[in-house]
């Protein structure tokens, strides 16, 4: 299925080459197409150059980029106007297609992109069970804590969030199944296709696809009565206020944020306030030093370390 979804958006000539390479699609992390430059893959953590029939590097043409854009957008780029402004489109399966080119400005703001010259296809990886190790720390009395996942880019925060959502929704040995509302602004958590999530999010999950976080959280609270709300990549002051509002409404919050460490997060004005008020009860710090998705540490609301990957589990448990 994943293989088909990826091949479906690639230009014909690259599809043929990939088929010949006989890749394991689970190991494919990124694919970078730049006009007049070699096609590069990030495969199993390493960069790899795709070769053509003459054993030279495959050079990406303008036509390849144009063809791929048609497939990515279902032949309808206009339907992705909003996403193009952000520089990426999320396709079926939650894979992200980033692009660069010439920016069209209107009143000083980005209106759209044209003459697209580079495309980066980033694969979404669903890793069932990747949240198993964090559950003992983020649950109490069969309820989930307000949890914030902190991670630099490409360390698997969305993958971890997705598996937490699935397990909270289905229930497991640590928690009873709860109604989860997901606001999936970039279609990366659920990888929705026509509103239906293609990734496993559990039996009690309602998902708002392509919806701005702030409005989405309010909509979910009013309409679906979620016990837990999950959002990806909070970052703005509005996001933080919406998260606080949802917490005051009695919902448990599970969110992710871009940061290298707890210290870096504390330095950000809106998060500093939030940490000081101990609104999140657990912080999960991810890294990729030994492997992608490595849980570096789990902290409680006051920032005390509960778990560290460098120390045997449970050593720091308070």
């Amino acid at each position: 299925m994943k293989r088909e979804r990826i091949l479906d958006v690639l230009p014909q000539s690259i599809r043929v080459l990939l088929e010949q390479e006989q890749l394991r699609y689970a190991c494919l992390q990124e694919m970078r197409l730049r006009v007049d430059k070699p096609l590069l893959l990030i495969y199993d953590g390493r960069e790899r150059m795709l070769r053509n029939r003459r054993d030279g590097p495959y050079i990406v043409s303008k036509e390849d980029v144009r063809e791929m854009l048609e497939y990515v957008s279902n032949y309808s780029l206009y339907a992705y106007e909003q996403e193009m402004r952000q520089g990426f489109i999320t396709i079926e399966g939650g894979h992200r297609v980033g692009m660069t080119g010439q920016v069209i400005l209107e009143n000083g703001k980005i209106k759209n992109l044209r003459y697209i010259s580079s495309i980066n296809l980033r694969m979404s990886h669903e890793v069932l069970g990747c949240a198993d190790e964090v559950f003992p720390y983020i649950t109490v009395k069969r309820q989930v804590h307000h949890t914030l996942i902190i991670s630099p880019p490409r360390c698997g925060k969305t993958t971890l969030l997705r598996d937490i959502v699935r397990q909270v929704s289905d229930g497991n040995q640590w928690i009873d199944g709860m109604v989860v509302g997901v606001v999936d602004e970039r279609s990366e958590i659920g990888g929705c296709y026509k509103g239906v999530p293609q990734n496993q999010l559990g039996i009690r999950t309602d998902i708002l696809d392509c919806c701005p976080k702030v409005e989405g959280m309010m909509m979910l609270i009013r309409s679906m009565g979620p016990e837990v709300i999950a959002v990806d990549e909070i970052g703005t002051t509005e996001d933080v206020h919406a998260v606080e509002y949802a917490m005051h409404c009695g919902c448990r919050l599970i969110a992710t944020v871009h940061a290298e460490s707890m210290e870096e997060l504390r330095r950000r004005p809106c998060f500093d306030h939030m940490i000081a008020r101990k609104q999140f009860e657990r912080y999960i710090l991810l890294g990729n030093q030994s492997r992608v998705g490595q849980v570096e540490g789990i902290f409680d609301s006051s920032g005390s370390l509960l778990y560290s990957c460098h120390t045997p589990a449970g050593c720091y448990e308070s």
Partner: protein
Amino acid sequence: MFLKMIGISLIMCTTFLGGGMAADKIKVQYEQLKYLQKLICRLRSEIRYAKSYLGEAFYQIGMAEKSPYREWLLGMSEQMEEKKGGRFLEIWEEQTKKNLHNSGLSKETLVRLMDFGGQLGGTDVEMQVKALELYQEEIELSMEEIREEMRTKMRLCHCLGIMSGIFVIILLL
């Protein structure tokens, strides 16, 4: 004499029918343009208000339309959904040639329709809607031209049918 009379009536009937068919063709052409304009209007609404993908919009519109437009739209939608490759313009041209060559639209209209495919799928909703509006106006102009000349042309076709019949009869007698 009796045989001659039958021959004359047969020739007259044939040429009269021929003239009638030529006149009908003009009428059909006008009606088909009107229908095409309606389809473009629906496509514009789907894009403007629902922001549907072209494939989705073709499917929605195609399901409610009559043949051959139904086959044309559903064919394109299916081919786009299959994602077996092929640029949009290729799909559009292929399906237009396959399904609309006998629709009653004139050759010029079909050529213009195929070219119009190149303007679909752009990066901007506004631009897309404007392109559709412009094409609608073009159709409206063509319809106006046909409407102005329709009566004269139809009468001419009928007359030519009868006249050619008389001419053939005189020639044979």
